[in-house]
């Protein structure tokens, strides 16, 4: 046959062509498979759905092991926008019983959120009811890109202690920035122990890796769950609160503005801590939370403001036991030192009024009758004595202040709750600034001697002083969490703090407070079967009627409860402070109110002092 060798050379052209194509393809494959890493991530994003498994939040019990806060499941509808295909919106909305307009609004709200990404799960609807959850779960296969995220909501067994317990809310942008733990859509504690013990309560999130096919169906777990991380439940807390006592105290404070704090002196454990007016913790759960929260914020009585912890009140006469302690410690007075009282403290043109009682009187009767003059004279003797060890008024005042700070005034005590207030105890500099150095004396600032003037304290600090007297000279930092599951509570809640005042002087003060109950200003607190000690306070204030205050502890020996009651604009300490305080003491120690005191309970439950507050309800 004829063979054209010129044409035969063309085999090299054809062979070369296919060889060049093969080289180009190998280069391209090298680029795709070796050089570029992004395809691996794309494939993983396609195939693996990383779902967070939320741990169960820790339970909260009261001191008697009553369950106070527990969990309820809630279901959020999540969507991964990238995976959502066209779907029957009408049917979707009908399943979830929302209107299409509402649906559109939620979609646009989701897209406007700062953390929006079409590749990661976004929360579309929160807190589905169990019924809607069931309906949607059944139809979920029709809506690729959607899934249901189980979450934990709080459930409250009692309508009480909202200020102590706090609540949980969805995290904000700043929470996410502050703490790596949080992702958009998570919940964190807000207010109360939910906030301060959030790290214990929240547990550790787990996650599971699911395999998802091209149509968005879940086809199983990656490596049968071998790489899943199980969530770790949050720690349970045991509170020092007695939830029954808390409820009772809250009921006594209805229609009053103020606070009640009850402490177990020996341990510093807070038995009850009422801020009034209060609100139901159940308001701040679930879908209605936002609306209710706004209402509480706008409420003129400021229920979210924890008066027991943050309120700064003039302690009034409840301040007198601490004055007596300082005078004794500093040797200004002894038990037989007596000061005159002619219906008050009269020094030059200065006059501080007092009520009718014998004169002159020493310390214990002065406490018993709440004699203003005695404490004014004592204060003057300490501050103005030029020949004393202090040298001048300013130095003397600094010593006075140091003792008060050691008793827990002037600075936050360190309670295990967020945002504790500090009250206010001025120092010498403060007065130097106002009056000029050496231009002030005891008389200039005499009202601080009786817990008025610049002196401010939180009800917690006042209660703590009462507990210190009850312990005869020491206290443990007040706290509400008694035990944390598998963990020891912080050492500061287990160590005694000793003020700069010798223990021996506390007995005399306690005796004076006992006398106030048996034959002084607190006679209403005189229970037949319990030796109560107390001290009233009636604090003048610029807002209207006097504040009514009371501190008391019982029994006289081996006290088990120390109470502070503070009712705004309610008049004399004896009218509201003493009844409420003594009822709380009686309820706690006996478990019931004796019949002959039922009238007192009745009166407190039904009285209304909120009308004197000058605050108009909306």
């Amino acid at each position, binding site marked *: *046959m004829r063979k*054209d060798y010129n*044409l*035969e050379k*063309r*085999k090299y*052209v*054809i*062979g070369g*062509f*296919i*060889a060049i*194509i*093969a080289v*180009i*393809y*190998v280069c*391209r*494959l*090298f680029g*795709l*498979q*070796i050089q*570029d890493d*992004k*395809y*691996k991530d*794309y*494939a*993983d994003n*396609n*195939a*693996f759905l990383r779902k967070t498994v939320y741990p169960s939040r820790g339970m909260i019990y009261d001191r008697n092991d009553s369950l106070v806060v527990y969990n309820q499941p809630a279901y959020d509808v999540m969507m991964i926008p990238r995976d959502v295909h066209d779907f029957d919106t009408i049917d979707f909305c009908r399943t979830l019983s929302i209107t299409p307009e509402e649906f559109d609004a939620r979609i646009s709200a989701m897209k406007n959120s700062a953390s929006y990404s079409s590749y990661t799960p976004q929360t579309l609807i929160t807190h589905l009811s169990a019924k809607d959850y069931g309906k949607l779960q059944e139809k979920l296969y029709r809506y690729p890109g959607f899934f249901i995220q189980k979450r934990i909501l709080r459930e409250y067994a009692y309508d009480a202690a909202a200020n102590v317990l706090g609540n949980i809310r969805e995290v904000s942008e700043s929470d996410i920035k502050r703490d790596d733990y949080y992702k958009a859509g998570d919940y964190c504690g807000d207010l109360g122990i939910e906030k301060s013990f959030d790290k214990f309560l929240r547990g550790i999130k787990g996650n599971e890796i699911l*395999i*998802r*096919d*091209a*149509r968005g169906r879940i*086809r*199983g777990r990656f490596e049968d769950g071998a790489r899943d991380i199980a969530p770790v439940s949050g720690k349970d807390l045991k509170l020092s609160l007695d939830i029954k006592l808390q409820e009772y105290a809250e009921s006594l404070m209805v229609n009053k503005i103020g606070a009640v704090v009850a402490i177990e002196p020996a341990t510093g454990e807070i038995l009850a801590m009422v801020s009034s007016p209060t609100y139901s913790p159940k308001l701040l759960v679930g879908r209605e939370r936002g609306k209710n929260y706004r209402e509480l914020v706008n409420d003129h009585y400021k229920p979210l403001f924890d008066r027991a912890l943050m309120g700064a009140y003039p302690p009034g006469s409840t301040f007198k036991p601490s004055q007596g302690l300082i005078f004794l410690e500093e040797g200004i007075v002894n038990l037989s030192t007596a000061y005159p009282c002619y219906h008050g403290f009269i020094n030059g043109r200065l006059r501080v009024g007092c009520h009718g009682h014998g004169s002159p009187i020493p310390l214990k009767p002065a406490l018993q009758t709440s004699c203003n003059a005695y404490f004014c004279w004592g204060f003057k003797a300490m501050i103005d004595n030029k020949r004393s060890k202090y040298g001048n008024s300013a130095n003397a005042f600094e010593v006075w202040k140091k003792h008060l700070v050691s008793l827990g005034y002037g600075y936050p005590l360190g309670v295990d709750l967020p945002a504790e207030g500090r009250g206010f105890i001025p120092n010498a500099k403060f007065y130097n600034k106002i009056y000029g150095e050496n231009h002030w004396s005891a008389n200039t600032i005499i009202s601080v001697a009786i817990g008025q003037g610049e002196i401010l304290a939180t009800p917690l600090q006042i209660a703590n002083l009462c507990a210190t007297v009850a312990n005869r000279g020491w206290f443990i930092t007040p706290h509400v969490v008694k035990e944390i599951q598998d963990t020891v509570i912080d050492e500061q809640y287990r160590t005694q703090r000793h003020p700069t005042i010798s223990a021996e002087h506390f007995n005399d003060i306690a005796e004076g407070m006992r006398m106030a109950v048996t034959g002084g200003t607190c006679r209403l607190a005189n229970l037949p079967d319990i030796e109560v000690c107390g001290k009233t306070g009636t604090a003048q204030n610029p807002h209207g009627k006097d504040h009514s205050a009371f501190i008391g502890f019982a029994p006289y020996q081996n006290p088990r409860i120390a109470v502070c009651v503070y009712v705004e604009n309610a008049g004399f300490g004896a009218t509201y402070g003493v009844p409420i305080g003594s009822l709380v003491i009686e309820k706690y120690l006996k478990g019931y109110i004796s019949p002959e005191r039922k009238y007192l309970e009745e009166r407190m439950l039904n009285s209304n002092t909120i009308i004197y507050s000058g605050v108009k309800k909306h």
Partner: protein
Amino acid sequence: MEFGSSYMLNRKQRCTPEEGESLFRHIDWFTVILYLLLVTAGVISIYAASYDFDNASIFSFNEFSGKQIRWIGLSLLLGLVLLIIDGRMYETYAYPIYLGMLVLLTVTIFVAPDIKGSRSWLVFGPMSLQPAEFAKFATALALAKLFSSYNFTLNSSARNYLKALLIIFIPIILILAQKETGSALAYLSLFFVLYREGMSGLVLFAAFVAVVIFVVAIKYTSTLILGIPSGEFTVMCMVMILMVVMLAFYVRRLEPARNVLLWFAATGIIEAILSNWNLHVNGYVYFLSVIGVAIIYCLFEMLRIKARRLMVTLLTVVLSIGFLFSVNLVFSNMMPHQQKRIKVALSIEDDPRDAGYNVNQSKIAIGSGGAVGKGFLKGTQTKLKYVPEQHTDFIFCTIGEEEGFLGTCAVVLLFLILILRIITLAERQPTVFGRVYAYCVASYLIFHFCINIGMVIGLCPVIGIPLPFFSYGGSSLWGFTFLLFILLRIDASRRSRHTM
């Protein structure tokens, strides 16, 4: 009659053991091994591609891999039969086979059910076959027969060209009528055969230039240079360079090429300076006038030195520019979705949702395989059905994802070796029939290999054609088995031809 007796004679001869032995001794076992490697790798890939989490046995015939094993078994049997038949039978019956296949293709248009818009499948009970795949070997036989006819040379007359083109284009038209564009385009690969048998290389060159112009013109439309799209600007520049090169190549004297080059350079510099001074001359005006002047100069030159070959250059230039403008005209008149499909294929537009979804997912599958792959049956892209048509046209993804760069390179290499081997077989054929037939086989394989892998790795438009020996499906496998084993039979009998 004469043939019939020789056939009988042959069959008698074949019955003797020596003859049978010599046949199997003369078979190109190298190609057979390549074939077996490819189909085995193919069935493993199909198993992996269709493997579900609720997994079934590899031998279950309900699974694609099980069915494919059955197809492979049948095609081995078929291959054996094809080898046993006398090699000369194919030459003798080439036209009848071709005509029969044309009839079948025509019938298919009318009787085939509509499957995804195409009427190319003949359904026989549980089995369906695609005649377009079988028409491949028939067309190859017919073309080989034509070229082997007495004193036939492609370039001797236009009639010969016409005959060859008829043999190629009749099946193309019939398959287009079945709406199987991809399969129809595969027949265009037979132009490689025409080239080998004497067609001017200029045709392939023109096709290459046309493709380059098309791609460049469509791909770069977003930025403007001298008031025309940068793609067109680039094409114009390329045409100028081409003109200078061709002038230098085709004309013995270098003056025309030098003069044109100087002219282009001078006007180019002036144009650059003008545009630097913000005196814009429109790009069309500039290029058309400058090239126009060059063409007129060449025409004068042609008359002067009587270099008729200059005509080729001038025609190329004029046709290129004409093609460029017609591409623009056609493209701007296309439907948006057609434009989009072309643009996605040229990776101008990234659209992972719609038209680009398949390619995007197949690139993810291959890219995520890395150097050594995720391991057999561990590919998530393919297991979870992210890649469409993963056991048929996109089978290469499974290899890329599970066997990685090593696997893909091995497959590319296997195909390269097979194609080069077939070219070698072609060139060692003593007959024109054998050579042309072998080149046909090589051409089909080149086309399928380039287009299928090219589309899967995002270098070619998505044209739905299978990867030979790999993709699931009996028709494709049988079609290529026919092609290959007839070639092996023809090759095996080349010695006996000599002796007889």
